[in-house]
């Protein structure tokens, strides 16, 4: 998890650092912010000054106590506030004043840099270096090199990363990049949804067990699905009376992943909670147990096999279900029904299609998506691993997230969201399903998950209740991609 502690001073300091540099005259002079560790690079820069070394004045140093302090939101904020590039400098591995800060920083920033590049930022614009207090020459050389690279790229605003480009304000933003061209996002249309066919064995078993558990007082609440006025749509249902258990449904239109409800309900109920648990719920439960949101003893997990849920409008299998790797719960107290056959799926297919695109195309594709975002935060609210008591979005005094709905702010929100959940994402796809605007949120999540797996062999999240998320630990043998 990311250290979200921040102060108003951070924001003000960044304002000042960005604003001090005069607007570039011709020829273009880039504005670069360097976050420099107090214990090494900052001294190195001092030494460079003492030695009368010449280096470009484009770089503004912001002193941080450790490279591990550099929240990726700093980087995004700097870019949104008008920087053309960001440099992060810390101590060489093994030299950290706090012993391990730079190891954590390395993991985070490596993954974050890949995410930025994926979403369309040229890699030269965000760089990380290890520079010790005695390496004045390296500091100078780094600054010169980074400056030249970014100068060659030109101003960032030309790439639409700047402040207040585009925006949903007047309804005029029609995306130019056709989503269909990437091919994999729309589920194959199925003209008429078939009426729901109750998966009768599990549904009956669910009702029966719910009734028994409520009658015996073993649980005081059962969370499952119930009917709506529309045949092909279900809704989360909270059953507290044994006689209401008949209202529980289980059919192929049970699209909601329920696990997150248990967190609030636990606060309100005295007894245990029985949760209808498919593969996605079970992994969410595991992850929430690891995050100390729930205790296993709070829950009775009624395992249900799932063979994929369907869209109520088209009848097509939901995208999130078509790429599901665990149709049966990975943890449960009792299994209601025969396990569904697990299928080999390639969950990174869409991702590879996007990775194969040119960086400019990806930028256009994501930009079009950011302009559609209305910032309703449905993705955050349904996410089982979005568990912060106070979201960075709501930290208004810090001012991470501006209220304006424009491309820059929307991008800031979406990239930060991915970074916050990425190493714990169970890939349930609820964010993308819930998004009223159909943003490709899982493409970002999967990019992060896939990178963490490549870099740190993190595997799939939520298969056990151990807190083994890749960004919460480090390994001395970690690769160094770009330092």
């Amino acid at each position, binding site marked *: 998890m990311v250290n979200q502690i921040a102060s108003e001073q951070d924001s003000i300091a960044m304002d000042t650092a960005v604003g001090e540099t005069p607007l570039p005259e011709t020829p273009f002079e880039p504005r670069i912010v360097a976050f420099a560790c107090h214990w090494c690079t900052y001294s190195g820069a001092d030494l460079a000054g003492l030695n009368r070394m010449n280096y470009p004045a484009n770089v503004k140093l912001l002193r941080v106590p450790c490279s591990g302090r550099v929240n990726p939101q700093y980087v995004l904020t700097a870019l949104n506030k008008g920087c053309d590039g960001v440099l992060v400098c810390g101590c060489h591995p093994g030299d950290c004043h706090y012993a391990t800060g730079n190891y954590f920083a390395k993991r985070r920033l490596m993954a974050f840099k890949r995410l930025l590049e994926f979403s369309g930022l040229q890699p030269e614009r965000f760089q990380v270096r290890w520079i010790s207090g005695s390496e004045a020459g390296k500091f100078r050389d780094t600054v010169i090199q980074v400056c030249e690279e970014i100068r060659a790229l030109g101003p960032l605003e030309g790439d639409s990363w700047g402040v207040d480009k585009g925006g949903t304000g007047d309804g*005029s933003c029609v995306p130019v990049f056709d989503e269909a061209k990437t091919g994999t996002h729309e589920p194959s249309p199925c003209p008429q949804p078939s009426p729901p066919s109750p998966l009768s064995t599990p549904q009956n078993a669910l009702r029966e067990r719910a009734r028994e558990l409520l009658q015996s007082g073993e649980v005081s609440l059962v969370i499952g699905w119930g009917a*709506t006025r529309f045949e092909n749509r279900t809704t989360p249902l*909270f059953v507290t009376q044994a006689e209401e258990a008949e209202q529980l449904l289980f059919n192929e239109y049970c699209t*909601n992943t329920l696990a997150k409800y248990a967190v609030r309900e636990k*606060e*309100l109920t005295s007894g245990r909670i029985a949760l209808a648990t498919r593969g996605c719920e079970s992994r969410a439960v595991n992850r929430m147990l690891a995050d100390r949101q729930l205790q296993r003893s709070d829950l009775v997990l009624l395992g249900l096999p799932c063979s994929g849920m369907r869209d109520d409008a088209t009848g097509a299998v939901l995208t999130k279900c078509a790429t599901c790797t665990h149709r049966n719960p990975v943890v449960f107290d009792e299994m209601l029904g025969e396990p569904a056959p697990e299928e080999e799926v390639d969950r990174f297919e869409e991702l590879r299609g996007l990775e194969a695109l040119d960086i400019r195309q990806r930028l256009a594709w994501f930009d*079009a998506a950011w302009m559609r975002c*209305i910032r309703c935060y449905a993705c955050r609210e349904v996410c089982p691993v979005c568990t912060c008591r106070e979201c960075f979005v709501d930290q208004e005094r810090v001012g991470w997230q501006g209220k304006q709905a424009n491309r820059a702010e929307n991008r800031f929100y979406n990239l930060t969201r991915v970074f916050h959940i990425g190493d714990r994402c169970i890939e349930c796809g609820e964010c993308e399903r819930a998004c009223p605007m*159909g943003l490709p949120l899982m493409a970002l999540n999967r990019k992060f998950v896939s990178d963490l797996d490549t870099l740190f062999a993190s595997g799939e999240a939520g298969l056990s209740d151990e807190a083994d998320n890749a960004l919460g630990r480090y390994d001395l043998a970690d690769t160094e991609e770009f330092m």
Partner: protein
Amino acid sequence: MLLPKDRLTPLLEHLQTPSVRLYVPAQAGGKTTRFALYEPHITTAFHLVNTALPPKDLLFPQTQKMYRYGFDEAGVPYIDPIHDADEVIVFGLRPCDMASIECMDAVFLTKGYVDEFYAPRRERLLAVAIGCTAPAKTCFCDSMGGDANEAPQADIQLNETVDGAAWVVRANTAKGTDALASWSAYLLEEAPGETAPAPAPAPAPAPAPAPASATPAPTPAPAPAPASASATPAPTPASAAPHTPEIKQTACTLRVDMTGVKEKLDALYEHELWERIAKKCVTCGTCTYVCPTCHCFDIGQENRMREGERFRSWDSCMFSNYTLMAGHHNPRADKMPRVRQRFLHKLCFFEDRYGRSLCVGCGRCVEQCPVALDITELIDEIGRITPSASPSAPAPASTPAPASAPAPAPTTSAPSAAPLTPPPAKEA
């Protein structure tokens, strides 16, 4: 007058001029549809019942810059208001969209307060509505006082003919009548042979201008027409009472009974139903942002050194920081009061102030809520609640008692009248 469907595109191209911004329902990427600026390459979506996003952002943008401020070169402070209203035509509003604009007008233009950012946009808006032909399963406008066929507030109204080949065009306002003048090159006078007069628009357009419900347009329209368009394809300007072809009539399949709902809600503030329906709400802002009438906003500013901008942007009562006060007190910190606030505002509070419901029955929130929390089910449920022992309608009228303590009114039988007693729910 008739607008044949194959003349729609030429008409849109005609209406799109450098001085006018023309918005039409269009695909906007992904599954998003919205009113978008008309351009030749966009994919229009006139077939849609409703666009996923409502047209409200044309009048009330999600982010609206209000003024710039700062210090100029000489160090003198300045404030520059930003007014950016262009002439706008919205083509293809649905009757519910029009009703929502009426709600927004009430908020931003009445009760002694005229919003200086909304008013100019509203003034320069020409609304062209198209009557519905096939309501979606989530549509319930006719239960909320609307009519899927009629948009009396629209400047110009189009209704599809029974054969589906054309729209019957008529102006509802003087502004619409003026605007129709420039359309004449694309319109056909009705075929004089047709004999299907008047059944269609007879009862509905109450506030429409006087010139007869059946043929409102022809009076001023043909006059400027020959002048402006010499190539008028219209056959003979036979101004001798052309007959209106029959138009398709439709009605919503989803119906709710609003009778007495407001009166009941007056007494339901403490009812256990709110906690029950709030349980599944995830407090995202989807319902409020896709709602055509939700109009809450927040005011913020962006400062950069010696200058800054003040803007207002949509806010949602579903968010916890919507009610966050200085000193960090939050009167609606939990989701139950937030959900209750939203529905009470829609169905009760707005009616108190403006005399109509704030829900126009477009069904967007029903369609798009990620957890299928459905306002129509809530209305049904309120309908089932019996405020007193007698289940009939007139009961609530006798107990208006708006601000009094909720429960004690019904002293009749039905021990403890379960529905009205506040439960001992523990509220975190």
